[in-house]
């Protein structure tokens, strides 16, 4: 029982991370119809920028990152989100905008190029270098809740960590804000219009370029938030080109596909589904194959229902 609940708890925290990243993939796909391969690298940037701010900027402001006040974490998070949304904007304007009318495959390849570029620039000593680094814990990682299960001697504990709760709440708040933005605001209506049919939207007087840029900025900000939260949960940050990051991005992408790519709510559901499959598989079958479960699920999904859980089929007009 304790193990089961513990796995649920981890799935919720990890799932929130996947969901945040998946949102970026799905929003870009919804509007520009291509897989933004470089999205996972924005997550990396988010994590490493947070780390640099925490280790270099905070001390200059006279704040000890190891005993930071409660608001320092929030400040780092916001700064990192802002930085990444600017980077997202620049990437979109320079690399993707000129390709608005090009075949989608070309855009996909460009995105792969951008991804390689970000990874390898990040590896330069000028930026983050090739060594792993440790994120200072801006939050005391004290267990918030500890429940004992079972009898004395064979007791199992369920631990709900503060970090996990913060991850879940932060991600949840961001997702609710996004939901409000997309489905309840005028801007969101414009975004949905562009996603539905770019040409009609521009005929209706919507500034498509602005909407696309905005989408990239929001997606990148969410990715940065995911990067920050990831660094809170797993403070030993690997170097920017490490495969672990690629895998993180891939799994989040799988989440977006499972949920139905292009669908904002689907991405969130997909994130939690992937996390659950991974965590339960790792715990109950074998942790060696945790990536395996996710990709098998992806391939099964593509075969059975390529449009994902919430996606809809579109018949090509001939």
């Amino acid at each position, binding site marked *: 029982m304790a193990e089961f609940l513990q796995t649920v708890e981890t799935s919720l925290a990890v799932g929130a991370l996947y969901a945040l990243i998946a949102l970026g993939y799905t929003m870009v796909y919804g509007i520009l119809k291509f*897989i933004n391969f470089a999205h996972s690298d924005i997550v990396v940037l988010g994590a490493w920028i947070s780390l640099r701010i925490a280790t270099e900027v905070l001390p200059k402001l006279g704040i000890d990152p190891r005993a930071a006040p409660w608001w320092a974490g929030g400040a780092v998070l916001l700064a990192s989100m802002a930085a990444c949304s600017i980077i997202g904007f620049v990437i979109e304007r320079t690399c993707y905008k000129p390709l608005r009318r090009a075949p*989608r495959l070309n855009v*996909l390849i460009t995105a792969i190029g951008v991804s390689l570029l970000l*990874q*390898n620039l990040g590896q330069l000593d000028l930026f983050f270098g090739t060594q792993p680094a440790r994120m200072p814990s801006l939050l005391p990682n004290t267990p918030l809740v500890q429940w004992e299960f079972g009898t004395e001697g064979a007791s199992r504990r369920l631990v709900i960590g503060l970090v996990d709760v913060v991850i879940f709440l932060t991600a949840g708040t961001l997702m609710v804000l996004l939901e409000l933005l997309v489905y309840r605001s005028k801007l969101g209506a414009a975004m949905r219009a562009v996603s539905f049919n770019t040409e009609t939207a521009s005929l209706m007087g919507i500034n498509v370029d602005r909407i696309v840029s905005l989408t990239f900025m929001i997606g990148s900000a969410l990715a940065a938030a995911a990067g920050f939260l990831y660094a809170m949960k797993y403070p030993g940050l690997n170097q920017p080109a490490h495969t672990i990051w*690629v895998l993180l991005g891939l799994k989040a992408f799988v989440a977006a596909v499972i949920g139905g790519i292009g669908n904002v709510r689907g991405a969130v559901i997909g994130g939690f589904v992937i996390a659950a499959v991974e965590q339960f598989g790792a715990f109950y079958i074998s942790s060696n194959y945790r990536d395996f479960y996710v990709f*098998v699920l*992806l*391939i099964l999904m593509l075969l059975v229902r390529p449009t994902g859980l919430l996606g809809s089929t579109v018949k090509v007009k001939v």
Partner: protein
Amino acid sequence: MPSNAAHSPIVLREADALRPPRGHALLRGIGPLLIGVAIAAVMQWGVGPFVGTYVARILLDVGIAIILAVSLNIVNGLAGQFSLGHAGFSALGGYAAGSITYYGSLILWNSSVKHGGPFGAGEWLFVAACLTGGLVAAGAGFIVGLPALRLRGDYLAIATLGFGEIVRVMLQQTGDVIYSARALEQATVNDFFPPPLGGSLGFSGIPTYTSLFWVYLFCAVTIVVAQRLKFSAAGRAMVSIREDEIAAQAMGVNITKWKVRAFVISAFFAGVAGALFAHESGVIISPGDAGFQRSIEIVIMVVLGGKGSITGVLLAAAILSTLPEFLRDFAQYRMIIYALLLIGMMLLRPQGLFGNHEIWDYFKRRRKSSS
């Protein structure tokens, strides 16, 4: 009056009359392969011994890169199916071939070192292993080709990427290599589950049979096959799928069949390339070889060379696999340069260096315009 036309198509009425004379056909059929053998022999005995081991190794890598890129170009450039799993096929072929020569040598000759001289028994075992590696990869290509039928563009890219990652994870979970003939004799069934392929450390100890001769021979075969496919009914069928699937079907092209065929053929040569790589001296194959970063390197070669241009891709493979040697001092900038090349190419010349054309098309055109 049921017309005869239903039984004998009009197209084929002249086909028999148009068959070339036997001798001529044989020459055209085998000629290119003989040239391939000659080039391979020159590389092995004319070039190899004089350039030193360092350059010889680069030449091996270039040859293998050419096989990988030209074969990926069949599925990617001709059939237009964007695959990000080519390294996965290659690694499967490498592991399959490596396990055959390694364990085969232990069983046959009690030792895993190279057995026999040039064209000796060991070398033939190696050739058989390369072909088997190709077949194993082709089998995987068939399995991956099946979902490809239902998926287009980026979805396929993701599925193939997932395939490569699955291969990588599975290879990581393999067990330790059994190090000697004695240990192999004493091994129990348990030692073979999971298969003893070295796990995440890599499969070491594979005999080093790979030579310039075999690499360039397989290289020639790959190029000849790719070229014959491209300029034939098969190539047209594949390109039609790339250009417009609906129109292709309307012209009677069975797009399912051709997509799977493209995957199978392409995977076969990727497997052979993997096998050659596995037997190179100084190389220890490891699960990372199946990963998606390796696949992307091959994709870059194809993209730079031009979709469907065999000579363009060949050139790109040769350049991109020697470039790192020149950039050794700037190793950390190498991938940055690749990335910029890729982005710049897509922005400025998305069809690649040579687009759909072969290099000689340019000479022809120049001759035409000057005359």
